[in-house]
């Protein structure tokens, strides 16, 4: 009569139980850390973009202000967004601003350095609704714009048409 628990079967069982326990032992601390990293925050229609802007500029509720700023500009003209090459924060701000600028057409201009003087001087103010500077310095000759925390400034170039 053969044993209902032959060696092969016991080894098989031990192997898979061991693997399952090892998986749990390695995973649980990682998942626990990931799950408890952030507290529950209130949600809102612009929950994600607000969090991005809070992280990048330190200001609360930037998304709504940005949307109303863009709404006050002529829809037929594009928004030009300047971002800094190699600066992830600057590109992040630029893309999130482009996301909110709809239905305006947008142009993303990536520049080297922090002074977009040359690029700005080539812009025809009559054909652009606004320029957005993401972690870039505004030239002195350009009128001051609306500042949404450090690193984000919108300079309106035309009235609503």
């Amino acid at each position: 009569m053969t044993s209902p628990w032959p060696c092969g079967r016991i080894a098989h069982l031990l192997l898979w139980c061991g693997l399952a326990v090892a998986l749990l032992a390695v995973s649980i601390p990682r998942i626990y850390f990931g799950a408890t990293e952030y507290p529950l925050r209130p949600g809102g229609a612009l929950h994600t973009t607000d969090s991005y802007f809070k992280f990048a500029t330190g200001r609360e509720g930037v998304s709504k202000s940005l949307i109303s700023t863009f709404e006050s500009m002529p829809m037929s003209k594009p928004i030009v967004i300047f971002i800094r090459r190699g600066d992830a924060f600057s590109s992040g701000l630029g893309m999130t601003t482009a996301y909110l600028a709809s239905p305006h057409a947008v142009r993303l201009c990536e520049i080297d350095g922090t002074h977009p003087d040359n690029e700005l001087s080539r812009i025809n103010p009559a054909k652009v609704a606004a320029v957005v500077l993401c972690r870039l310095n505004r030239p002195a000759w350009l009128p001051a714009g609306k500042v949404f925390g450090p690193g984000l400034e919108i300079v309106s170039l035309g009235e609503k048409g």
Partner: protein
Amino acid sequence: MNALGLFGAFGTLFAAGYGLLALLIRRSVRLSLAEQIAFSWLFGTGAVSLLLWVFGFFADGLLLQGLVNVVCISLGMVGWNLKKPSLIRRKPRWFEVVLSAVIAIQIAIVFYLSFVHTLGWDGLLNWEIKARYAFANGGVLPAAYFSDIGRAFSHPEYPLAIPFTELWLYFWLGESNQFWAKAIFPTFYVAGTFLVGAFTARLSGRTWLGLLMAALLFFVPQVTVEVGCARSGYADFPLSVFYFAAAGCLFCASEQGNAVFFRLYAGCLTLLPWVKRDGLILWAVATACGVFIILRTRKSPSSFLAFLPGIVIILAWRLYLNATHALQAADFLPFNLETLRTHLNRALPLLSALVAEFCSLSTWSLFWFIVAVAFLYALPRMRESGVVALLVALIAPIVLYLCLYLFSNWPNYLDHVGLSISRLLMQVAPIGFLLIVLAISRHPEKQPQRVQMPNRATCAIACSERTAVVELA
């Protein structure tokens, strides 16, 4: 108001999916409640997003929403008439109850995590952006969006299953809402967990093993907490669920005469290229596996028609992109032999990056190590067509994705790999659970109780209305 809107959106999604499921399976097979929920969700999201896109050619706003609602409700009624949801027939054992409770807690945690975190970067700027713009334009993506150079970063060429499911929520909520848009992603996790549980239970013939596998899915950090995980708003996890469903159904369809699962496979296969651009590769692999199963099991030549809907979706989307002059991503160099020849020197660094990813405990824990052990168990079973199909479904996409990086246009292709490989591996990871359960429940021919014990469905015996039911309690 939000709760009512969500209820309406989810209700119509499930109704449409349930109707399609019932039409596909008719009265020929009894699926467990978990399988019905999972397939209803997958088919519902696929159908509603496709309907919004197609009806959007001649309707918008309330008319568009109304038309899609009518189709969803009609499908739901057809489904209800064809097939009533099955009920739990047996009393679950105590450890099955415990495992079910664990799964319920895990699902609650994933929902919690989804609402704690924001949408991920791609979740917002590749997927939700399309839903938002379409909602602002009456449910139709503005034609100008596809050729807007300033928004090329948002990949206008990506397909619409995920964004248009979010759009459906927006229609019901009456506003675009980044917070509630996240609700669909944990639901994909629910579908994925249910399918892992259901298929592994079918394969092993043991409900508790299915429940255990479903519970273990949570313990893969890439699925639960890592960048691009199930709750992040990326399309990778939903794609992995569709792919897993297709592969699982195909495995079941490899049993002689199991036409129902082949139809379900065809349904999931169709939606792969509609979820994400990478879905095209998974579609190609799953199609190749399907052809193999058709030939090996001598299915009727009409089975080849299963591939037609997917081809139609691929071609229709390509035509649409051409017609809207959509910008193409510049992530990859032209796919030709010359580029391949000049970039072959990347092969070794790519392989070592892949091995490093497999060994990353913080991302995968021991998951791939366990899959490797299961792979060794599967080698002696290479004569079984279902096992071969599963192995190909697991390995071929990984090889193809690795080859894709040979054509990467990023200044540092290893950055490209580092940013995306974990998400690409996640697309095939659930299939690893099928392999694991095959290994655990080896020598099925020596376990005659598989087909004798009541209330335990396997792929082999799931062919008739009298089939016993596998239920996730």
